[in-house]
Structures are given as C-alpha cells and as structure tokens.
C-alpha cells in the first residue's frame, strides 16, 4: 500500500485516497468545436507509460482535495505531489 504525500495533509495511507487517472488531460475549451477524433481522444484515450507518470488523486477520506502525483508505474516510487493547475515539478 502506497504512502501518498497529500500536498495539504502530508503522508497518508493509500486507502484514504481515490485514483483519478492521468493528470493534465483538460476538458476541451470548446467541446462542441472538437471533431469526432479529437473528442474521442479526450474521452477514451489516456497515456499508460511504464515509468514516470503524472496522475491525479483525491484525498477522499481526508481533506477531499484533488492533487497531482508523480509516480513511477514500475517501481511505485513517488517523486512528489503538486496542486491541480500547476505544471509538473521537474
């Protein structure tokens, strides 16, 4: 079970969190202008890399706030967390 650093509460057990998939997949600014291909990419396609991955989590049973996490999908090593809306920390 991962030990996840919530940017607002500190390190907590994974059971307190809910996973939210890949980070930095924004809702299209004007969805109605998206063609079928662009829209289907937003709805159905997500990156699934082996290695470093920026993903969203919510501290469901804590502060209930969303944030981004950088995790290595192979080793589960967590490089850090940062607020929604921020760019990936280096």
């Amino acid at each position, binding site marked *: 079970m*991962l030990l996840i650093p919530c940017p607002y509460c500190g390190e907590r*057990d994974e059971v307190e969190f809910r996973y*939210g998939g890949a980070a930095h997949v924004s*809702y299209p600014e004007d969805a109605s202008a998206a063609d079928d291909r662009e829209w289907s990419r937003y709805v159905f396609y997500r990156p699934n890399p082996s290695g470093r991955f920026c993903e969203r989590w919510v501290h469901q049973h804590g502060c209930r*706030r*969303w944030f981004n996490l950088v995790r290595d999908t192979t080793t*589960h090593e967590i490089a850090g967390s940062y607020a929604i809306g921020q760019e990936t920390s280096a």
Partner: protein
Amino acid sequence: MRRLADGGRLDRSTTLAVTWDGREIEAHPGDTLASALLAAGITEVARSTVHGRPRGIVSAGAEEPCAYVQVDAPRSEPLVAATLVEAVDGLVAAPLAGFGRLAGDDLERHDRRHHHCDVLVVGGGTAGAAEARRAAAAGLRVVWAERDTGPLPDLGDDALCLSRTTAVGSYDDNLVMLVERVSSTRRRMWQVRAGEVVLATGAHERPLVFAGNDLPGVMLAGAARTYLERFALVPERAVVFTTNDAGTETAEALRAAGAAVTLVDARAGHAVVAAEGEGRLRSVLVAPIATPADAERVECELLAVSGGFEPVLDLHRHRRGGVRWDAPRACFVPHGTVRNQRIVGTAMGDGLPTVAALWLVPGGEERHAYVDLQRDVTVTDLRRAVGAGLESIEHVKRYTLVGTGVDQGRTAKTNAAAIAAGLLGREIAEIGTSTTRPPVEPVSFAVLAGRARGPRFEPVRTTPIHAWHVNHGAVFEDVGQWKRPWYYPQPGEDMDAAVLRECAAARTGVAMMDASTLGKIDIQGPDSAEFLNRLYTNSYDTLRVGRCRYGLLCRADGMVFDDGVVTRVAEDRFFATTTTGGAAAVLDWMEEWLQTEWPELRVHLTSVTEQWQTVAVVGPRSRDLLSSAFGAIDFSNEAFPFMTFRDTTFHKRFPARVSRVSFSGELAYEVSVPSDAGRLLWLGLWKAGEPLGVTAYGTETMHVLRAEKGFVIVGQDTDGTVTPIDLGMDWIVSKTKPFVGRRSLTRPDTARPDRKQLVGLLPDDPSVRLDEGAQLVLDPEQAPPVTMIGHVTSSYRSAALGRTFALALVRSGRERLGEPVYSPGADGITAARVVEPVFYDAEGLRRDG
C-alpha cells in the same frame, strides 16, 4: 527419539495435557507440538496431499514442508505446522485429513493495530538484536519482531518488542503486516509503516533429493540439532548425510549426546542413495556417488540431511527485491536493494558454510525422490515438465506445482531450480528462482478480518424512522448501505399482494414513504447556477427561486450517470437530490469538476443527506393530508403549483420544507425536516393521514408507480451504456448550452439509429410477469446463436392496469412499437408486444389532483 533427563529449554516440573489424534501425550512448557510428538515416539504425523504417503517432521521451524496438522483446541486452526504450535495445556491436535475444518461456532475474535516506526527489525537473532539495540540507542522508534517465543529484551519505551510474531508480508513503502500470537487463541495483526525495514531473517536448511527422502525419520540436520539442544531429544541410531560443515557439527553433537552416528559426507564422495522402511525410516543405503550400485545398508531411526542453507528472503522478494546465485554457498543471496530496506546477517548469506552442491543423488528411483514434499513433486515430475518443453522455472512451477504449497516451497524451490537446470543442461544462475508472494505463513481470514466483521465491516445505515418500519412489519431492501422498507406485508399477504395494495392506495387515496435516503447536496455560491448548467443536461440559470426542476447528469461519454430534482432556494443557493445509491458518487463527481476543471467558479458543495429526513406523501388525497398537517399553507393548485416548494415550521420549532414533486404521476408532496424531527414528522403525517386511510409503502411500490409512468431508475433501467436520447428523454437535453457529455451525444456510435432504446412491453398473457434481466429475441425459433435484441430492465404487476407490464432496452426499440418480441426462459417462451413506455395517465391529468 528419546527425551534426556535434563538439558533443553523445558520446564520439566510441569506436565501439559496434550492430545494427539485422540491419544494423550506428554509435553512440557517449552515444547512444540512437533517436539512432543517426537518425544512420544510418533514419527508419522501427516499423509501427503497427492500420493497419500506417510510423512513426518522435517524441520523445527517455519520451513516445515510436511507436518501440517489440524488443531482443534484451544483455538481451531485447520492448517498449521506442528513445528510452530506451542504446546499448551489442553492442546488438541490431529493429522490433517484432506482439507482442514473450522470450528462450527464462529467465535474467533482478533485485533488489528496500526503502528508507525522509524525502524522495523524482523528477526530476533544476533544480527537482529544488534540492529534493534543500535536503533533504540539512537533514540529511534523501533519495532522488533521475532517469530519464536522469546521473550525479547526490553529496549525502552520507544521500542515495541514483539515475540511470537511473524512478519507475513511486506508491501509498498514499507508497510509490513505482522501477526502476533497473543495467546493460544488470540492473534493480533499489526499493520506497521516503517521508515526503514531491516531484515535479519536468517537462513534455513535445505534437504537433499534421493529415493525415499520423504520417509518419516528423514529430517533436516539443523532440526535434529535443535531437537537435541532445545528439546533434549536424542536418537538411538542416526545417519547424518551432509554437503557442508554444519552437518558435520550436527553429527558430532548427536554423538556427544550418546547417539550412534554414521556420517555420510558428500564432500568425501559418499551419499545416501536411498532411504528404506515401511511407513517410517528403518535403514539407508550408503554408496560412493561415483558407483551408487555399491551400496551398503545402515540401520537407523533418524536420517539428518543437509543440502545447504537458504537465506530467508520472502519479505525482500515481496518487494521484488532481486537475488543472485552464490555458487560457493550454493544458494540465492540478495542482489540489489529495495528502497528503505536493509538485509543483515545470515539473510545476506553471511556466515553460511561452503557447500559441495549435490542436487540429485544418483542411483535411486526418481519417482520416489521428492523435490517438493508439500506438493508431492518428484524428480520424475520435473523430468516430465522439462520433457514437455518447459524451460522457464515459472512454467515448470505451474506445470508441476513445485513450490506452490502452504510452506511456500521453502525447502523445495532451489532444489527444483537446480534439478530443472541440470535436466535442461543449463546453469541454475540462468534459470533463477520463482516468485515469492505473501503471506509468509498461513493466515486465517478471521485474523485478516479482525473486528471488521458484519456491520463493523459494512456499516448499516438506517433512517430515524427505521423503528417504525420494523414495528409495522416492513420487509427491507438493501440500497447501498441503507436499509429501506421494501414493502409492508399485512397478515396473510405475500409480496405481490402487499405491493398491489400499496399501489392502489397511492393511486386512489393517500400513501406515505420514507424517502430520507435520497442523496441531498447543498450547493451554495454566486456561480452555483453556472456550475449546475455545466453539469446537468438542462438549464438552471433559468430556474426561478422557489421552483424545482428534474435533472439528468451524464458522464463525459454521454452516458446517464444520475438524476434527481434540483430546487432553487435562493439566487445563489440550490438544493439537489440524487439517487439513494448514487449520493456519494454524485458529490464526488461534482467536487472533481469544481476542483480540477473549474476552480474559478465560486461554489461550495455540502452533503446534507443525513441532515434532512424526507417523507413522500402520494395520492389524490395527499393534499387533504398535508392541509391537515400544515394548516398555515395554502395547498390549492393555484397557490402551490407543481414543481414549487414552501418553507414552513413543524411542531413550531423545526424548519420544514414541503416540495410539490412527484415520482408517481399522482398529486404528491415531499416534506423534509431536520433529522432530529424525522420520526416526529412521520408520526405526525401518519396521524393526519389515519382518517384518510393512509397506507405506508416501500421501494417496490415506488418502483411500480414510476414504471407505470415510464420514469426510469438510473442503475436499473440504465447501466452506464445508455444516453438520455436512448431513454427518449430528448426533452431534457439542452440544445443551446454546453454540458458535460453533450458532445458525446453526436458521436457516430451514440447517434446510431439502431441503439438500444427504452420501450414498454406488454406480455401477451396479462398474468405473466417477464423476468427482469431476461434477454429478448425477435425469432424464438432461430437456431443458435440466437440474435438478442435487448433485455427487460423493470417488470411488475400493476394494480392500476390490472395486468403485468415491463420496461426494456431494445435495439431500434422506438421503430418496433406494436411489434412482437419474445423472451426465452427456463419455463418456455414468453411473447410480448413493444409499446410506448408510458402505461398510465399519459396525458398527465392526475398530477394536480
């Protein structure tokens, strides 16, 4: 084996009553069940699982592959190694026959604790003790766990020293599960999150593979030495067969204790090529390895074997820690590191003797040469696996099951890898060893569950009105964690009769339902209307204060996700209801959009599901009932129209809200009060309704009433693949404003004309009720595979219609109105006709009473 008059770590002044297989045997404090059995001269303690061969005690510890027993008292344990069972007064055990059995009465109660520490040291040996002491001296918070009985020395207040405790699994970020044997009947599971894990788990011995090596009386050499030194047990005549110095030392120790010992040293070119005896060891054949036919028979009761030693690396391997082959010591040793974990002492391979590796002793019958005693895998089986073309040790494992027993194949895996490598003409270093997974030793489900059982595992949620429902004979239905009244059978009524009666009351008189479990969300802030506009398929900026509107939510893929009624309480405040089961998910969904996509919107969301209790009052006489209960309100249709609400007070002090919403098509109201007043409200409305013959109804009646009107239930008539258009609810989908999921409704797939669409079904025989979930076909005579065109989502008997009816999702359903469909079932084929999904009061005349 014979017990010496003194020596060992036993309290001979106390004799314990231990029963083995119905027979009293003698044991002392300090004994294990295994040592007590050996002292009693009992060598056969189990039958092997596949071949049914007699098996004895092989080890003195957790690596035991054979001596798994059933313990019946003091705590029922159906599968436990005799070497790990402490002898206590009243211990009752027996050979494990087939699958173990649990005690009939479920009295198991175990604890679970969470703990955090700087350093967790696993292992109470020399290396572990040094690590634990050093960490404690440095002022760190220490947990120190040792499987054996201890006790461990006190390391101060910041140290938790646990003997009789096994670390059974190591997980991400150093979460380690420990099982402590608190008493003979109680276990405590420790969930420890450690800054650093130090593994001082030592090593265990490995047997040798030769014909008859599974006979009771064949034992690991180190175990023979443990039984001698700790349990004061000495054999009359023993043979020690070794590949290393540790075995030689055991031979010397046994000899010093008075046993007649023959040493067979592989390093000197000799081997035991076979063990002999019926049911137990009587003699061995000793021969030069080069000429195994030149065998000499040696009589003995004990054959102590040492094929080398294996560092205990389970916890390291759980974390995918690497190992490499160490040829001089003939074992896998740690290779590479696991973050924040160290391995020390013997577990690193330190101090292990040099081994003259001998994998398969030649000269004996391979079908009696056991590689895995727990799984009954022989050399013949490995040869068959390799002959079948399997080259990976993981494949050999799956084919033969070698190493998959409850002992985790501790004594088997290296021998299996080495022998498979030999058969493949490769090196063991290339072959490697198979994966190791938790738990290290069997852990019962009762221990894993701890006290999280029944309602402590899954909470039961009830409303403040629950006791009334119970007292009035309600049958309950689980909706999420809620207990909701399903129907209220009167004496002599079955479910159908009760539901027909409740439905008739709601359509002709007045009926009441506890609707408190509906999810309720308080939405506040100046951008609330904009927020709801972006989420719901219809508009909320146009909703006037004081009015309510039914709304649908879609996910981004355009599929219906939830529904409910949204009330505008003030310019900047809305109150949304959700389905009972969807309440948490809807709130989470709203929060997600608010936080991750639209943080600029000034909106706050609060769950108030438990804060408000709601009673639905339904039927043509509901206006009469409420007029009597709330005299201050003008309930006339003109003054209090459909989809509006009135705030008032109840019992002079409780705020109350009466909303005119209807999920049945009848004139209906929902009354909400703070939870404290929920029961009073129900009783007050009931009293007001008694002169009108008010009837309580449950969720089944609610379902029938709404289905008669063609109102869907999200999650019953939808399943995450259904759009609002599929439901025929185009009227609620805004064409002018964006909302989440709107773009998906024009995707080629969602715009297909042949999607499954909501329709009504009327069975040809009005007394036959279709099964919910039943598949529908167009041609019941079609040869398989039959083309399925949809399924029944809701199906009921209707009091109002005097017949059965159903809702269904049918491919191109709206084009099939009037056409027949068929439902093939176990009792034959039911024919039905496709109709509009509104069965009752299609004109909506009953809404205003």
